[in-house]
């Protein structure tokens, strides 16, 4: 058999948040080198935060990512409140969860419709899908807007919302506005349910890989902004002990740090959450999920798109429940009393576990900060997945198929390279 080397160059990988690169060298269907490269021009957030007062942190960390600013704000306030020993109380906890639901809905709806679905339906973009899948797209855009509306209700706008502070929210939404939005949420439940079925019916390629899922787990709730860190390998630790088991290291070809769990790649994100927490879903979400016929935990990472739809459904129902007896409170925020020490926060960003650690001095100024975004945690896993998925296509797979599958796999992680940046060039080249 002749030696087969493939040279492919896709200048820009579309439909990911941010831009990165993939170097791939294949010989006779075997991968010789594979590197997911992220050229994040260093934005150095961890350094900017030093010397800042704790109250500034939520507005600053939001700017790490325009797609999941709520997650950054939530992990940050959780860490700081933990350090101050400040419990903002049930009203704030409930509304923060609603706030987070909004971000999940908008982020997942954006991912499913704008980024991922065209892959499975054979289009280059959602705009191209508009003619043939008008109803599905309209439904998706409506859900996306609804997610944005929830975030805006509490934060004034959906990107870099301005409502959150250490201790709670700056202002309570008016009861009339909440009631009106809740009606819109109720009206969208059928859409969310339909979306679960729609994603499950997409022609998703099969996949079967062995990987470790990592997510938060809460005694009662589907994980979002509280819980312990657990993994499918049996790990179960408090948030503050993250650094004992997880480590970040740098590789020469990427400016995003690679994370490993006890030295091995692992998965965070909607599929990992669902794999570990399906029992925590709302009963009607569990029912909708059962109807799809897909069983979780799943070993096919392309099932992430279904997991996202499930989480939209979950978030919608939760928001409806949490807003049911809404009453506005005069002063929803509590000022903290600064104290020196280290605080930890971990919440489930749409793309997965987002872990923060802040060391403050007694004036409440940040001494050190560490942010571990989901994308750097998934980076090693994406490479591992690509190896498996591309090699499984066989030695004869043509370049286009390989490229498309590589993009599909990468996209299914919804890598948020904005927490990184730059062009994602897929080069399949000889070693």
């Amino acid at each position, binding site marked *: 058999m002749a030696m087969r080397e493939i040279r492919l160059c896709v*200048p*820009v*990988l*579309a*439909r*990911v*948040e*941010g*831009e990165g690169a993939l170097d791939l060298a294949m010989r006779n269907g075997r991968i010789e080198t594979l590197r997911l490269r992220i*050229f994040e*021009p*260093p*934005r*150095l957030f*961890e*350094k*900017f935060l030093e010397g800042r007062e704790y109250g*500034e942190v939520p*507005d*600053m960390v939001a*700017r790490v*990512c*325009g*797609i999941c*600013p709520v997650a950054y704000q939530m992990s940050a306030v959780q860490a700081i409140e933990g350090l101050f020993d400040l419990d903002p109380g049930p009203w704030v906890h409930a509304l923060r969860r609603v706030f987070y639901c909004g971000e999940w809905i*908008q982020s997942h709806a*954006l991912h499913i419709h*704008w*980024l991922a679905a065209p892959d499975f339906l054979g*289009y*280059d*973009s*959602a*705009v*191209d899908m*508009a003619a043939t899948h008008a109803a599905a*797209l*309209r439904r998706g*855009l409506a859900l*996306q*807007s609804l997610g944005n509306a929830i975030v805006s209700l509490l*934060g*004034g*706008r*959906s*990107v*870099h919302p*301005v409502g959150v*502070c250490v201790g709670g929210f*700056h*202002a309570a939404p008016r009861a009339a506005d909440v009631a009106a939005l809740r009606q819109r949420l109720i009206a969208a439940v059928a859409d969310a349910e339909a979306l679960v079925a729609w994603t499950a019916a997409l022609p998703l390629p099969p996949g079967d890989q062995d990987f470790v899922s990592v997510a938060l787990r809460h005694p009662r709730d589907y994980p979002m902004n509280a819980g312990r860190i657990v993994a499918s390998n049996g790990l179960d630790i408090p948030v503050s002990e993250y650094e004992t088991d997880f480590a970040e290291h*740098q590789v*020469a*070809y990427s*400016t995003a*740090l690679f994370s490993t769990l006890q030295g091995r790649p692992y998965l965070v994100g909607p599929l990992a959450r669902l794999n570990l927490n399906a029992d925590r879903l709302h009963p009607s979400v569990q029912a909708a999920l059962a109807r799809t016929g897909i069983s979780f935990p799943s070993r096919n990472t392309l099932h992430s798109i279904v997991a996202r739809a499930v989480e939209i459904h979950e978030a919608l129902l939760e928001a409806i429940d949490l807003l049911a007896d809404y009453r506005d409170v005069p002063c929803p925020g509590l000022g903290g009393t600064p104290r020196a020490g280290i605080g930890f926060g971990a919440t489930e960003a749409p793309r997965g576990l987002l872990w923060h650690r802040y060391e403050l001095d007694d004036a409440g100024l940040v001494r050190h900060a560490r942010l571990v975004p989901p994308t750097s945690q998934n980076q090693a896993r994406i490479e591992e997945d690509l190896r498996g998925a591309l090699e499984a296509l066989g030695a004869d797979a043509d370049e286009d198929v390989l490229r498309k599958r590589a993009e599909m796999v990468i996209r299914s992680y919804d890598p*948020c390279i*904005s927490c990184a*940046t730059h*062009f994602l060039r897929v080069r399949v080249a000889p070693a």
Partner: protein
Amino acid sequence: MDAKPRLAVHKFSSCDGCQLAFLNQGAELLQLATLVEIVHFAQAGFVAPDATVDMAFVEGSISTPEDEKRIRLVRKNSRYLVAIGACATAGGLQALRNRAPGGAGWIAEIYPQPGHIHALPASTAVSAHVPVDAELWGCPVNGRQVLDAVRGRLFGVTPVVETDKVCLECKRQQGVCVLVAHGAPCMGPVTRTGCGALCPRLHRDCYACYGPAENANTQALGRRLADLGLSPAAIARRFLSINNAATAFRDAGDRWQEEDHGDA
């Protein structure tokens, strides 16, 4: 009818939030796609980074040698170039590193092997590298701003440049001044309008994410913040935040930092 204008959205160093001003428009984005030909907008699935276009929106600051080359190409290929957001108009929050005596030192602290990181010494606005035809300020810009710019272009006119202060919009919205009524260190009096006065309407101080307004009296506001009990260092931080490299804010921040060191 003329051919549809060709539109591109380019990304440089940023959080992607300004592109969402398009992507969050939902149905309106689909409508936009019928009015213009979207040629390049990677996140939305259109890839032609080197195509010539009628109108290009540029998000993000210029912060790597590669960015520098790319922005020149974008300029060359675009008849009308609009910089969007704090990163593209003022270097963004990440321009804080321009102020660090050891920007490179910072990199060393985060990355074990800083030699692999390629960055320019400063994160700068698009206009520091190529001429821009319009700037839409804000972190992030909103849908109204970007769609107005597209609509204006379709009418053959430049976007309206908003330069008034946040206060004016705050009052139009019947907001209660948080500075006067609560003593909050609001930056509204020096900040450019455009957001709809979101922060004061949520009972909090504006933190100047839309950048400096025209004729911003940063000295007078700084003194007022001092009256409210802020230290010179805290006042400096108010100016040196999202739009820290915008001239008016940078100068004000420098002055208050000097004051801080003078005190020390």
